[in-house]
């Protein structure tokens, strides 16, 4: 019951989605649309699970007075604030000028953007302290990176002009070439490789050979 039913569900759903591609006909197209509706509802609940779990963990932290429980309080408070606002705003909670929108623009956005922006700094310091042309592979990588970085911004050609480098090896040109030829080839190989990986995993999952998503055997 705990193991068989899930395996059957997975198999049925997976197979329907595959068949539907080859037989775009009733009942499969019908099932397909049902399944995709269910999918989005379950998906929503899955994300809720994450959120609620977070609250559970934080609450536990506070209850046990673990180190930094004060921050756990902050987490719960900020969660509650935005959630309540969102609920009271109603269906059009996302429109301009709503309180939710305000929080979104002035609290969520700055935080999320800055989290990503931090990387700019780390990249720089890593390129100074860690990125070494220690072997042929790394050298190729860094060379390509060099041309792409300098070639994709105007300054590259500006410098090239100053140094009166022949037109053919202007950074911008080299960058375009790398992207459209070597990169295209490499990405293609990687794409095919990854796709094969996904295909074999999916087959394993649908046939119930792969069960780790059920929490190990």
């Amino acid at each position, binding site marked *: 019951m705990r193991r068989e039913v899930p395996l059957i*569900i997975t198999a049925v*759903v997976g197979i329907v989605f595959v068949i539907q591609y080859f037989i775009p006909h009733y009942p499969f197209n019908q099932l397909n649309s049902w399944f995709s509706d269910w999918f989005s509802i379950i*998906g929503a*609940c899955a*994300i809720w699970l994450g959120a609620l779990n977070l609250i559970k963990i934080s609450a536990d932290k506070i209850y046990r007075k673990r180190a930094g429980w004060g921050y756990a309080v902050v987490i719960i408070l900020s969660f509650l604030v*935005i959630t309540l606002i*969102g609920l009271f705003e109603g269906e059009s909670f996302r429109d301009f000028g709503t309180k939710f929108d305000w929080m979104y623009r002035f609290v969520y956005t700055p935080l999320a953007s800055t989290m990503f922006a931090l990387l700019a700094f780390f990249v720089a310091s890593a390129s100074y302290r860690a990125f070494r042309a220690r072997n042929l592979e790394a050298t190729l990588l860094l060379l390509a990176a060099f041309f792409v*970085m300098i070639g994709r911004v105007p300054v590259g050609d500006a410098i090239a002009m100053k140094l009166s480098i022949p037109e053919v090896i202007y950074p911008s040109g080299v960058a375009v070439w*790398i992207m459209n030829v070597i990169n295209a080839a490499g990405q293609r*190989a990687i794409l095919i490789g990854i796709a094969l990986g996904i295909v074999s995993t999916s087959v394993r999952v649908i046939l119930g050979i792969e069960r780790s998503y059920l929490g190990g055997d």
Partner: protein
Amino acid sequence: MDAIGLWIGAFLTLGIMSFLYKDNPWYKLSESIFVGVSAGYWFITLFWDSIYSKFYIGVSQEGDNYLYVGAILGLMMLMRLIPKVGWISRWPLAFIVGAISGFYLINYFSSNIMRQVANTVMPLFSTDYGQSLFSASVGTIIDNILVAGGTFAGLVYFFFSKEHKGAFGATAKVGIWVIMVTFGATFGYTVMSRMSLLIGRMDFIFGDWLGLIK
């Protein structure tokens, strides 16, 4: 109201940035707010967009009763919060996994295997399939050869059931070079992306907030 917003936004931005100096209370505070708010954000978004407009409206107005099944599965998902009956959440999980697998199986196979292979098969000396011979410039011919060869070599490198010796090994070597150049390109673009985001933040601080940029 927006002025206050700007100050808060700036406060949080600088708070996260302060991690660059070292892990400190200001950063921890901003991070906790981030964790809470983003969780809440998704909670609300999905409540209205999915649970309300898809399920509630669907059932109450269109009378799509089949949606109840989805709702039940969704509830089962939430059961995980209660350890005793947590195992039931495997059912909806199985549904999600099955749907994704079935969908990916087809999509990745058709677009990333079939199409990519088909598109690699190109006449080397012509601009395109069906074009006359040597219609391509020398440059294009070289590019064609490089793309076809590079893709092939790349695949060879990721081929695990044969020892990399002799011609095969040599091809694999070329393959890894191609892949390295590809990574170089990715590297460059990642740097570009991160810098752009930083520029965006700095624009917020010095432009929107402090109004020092015209």
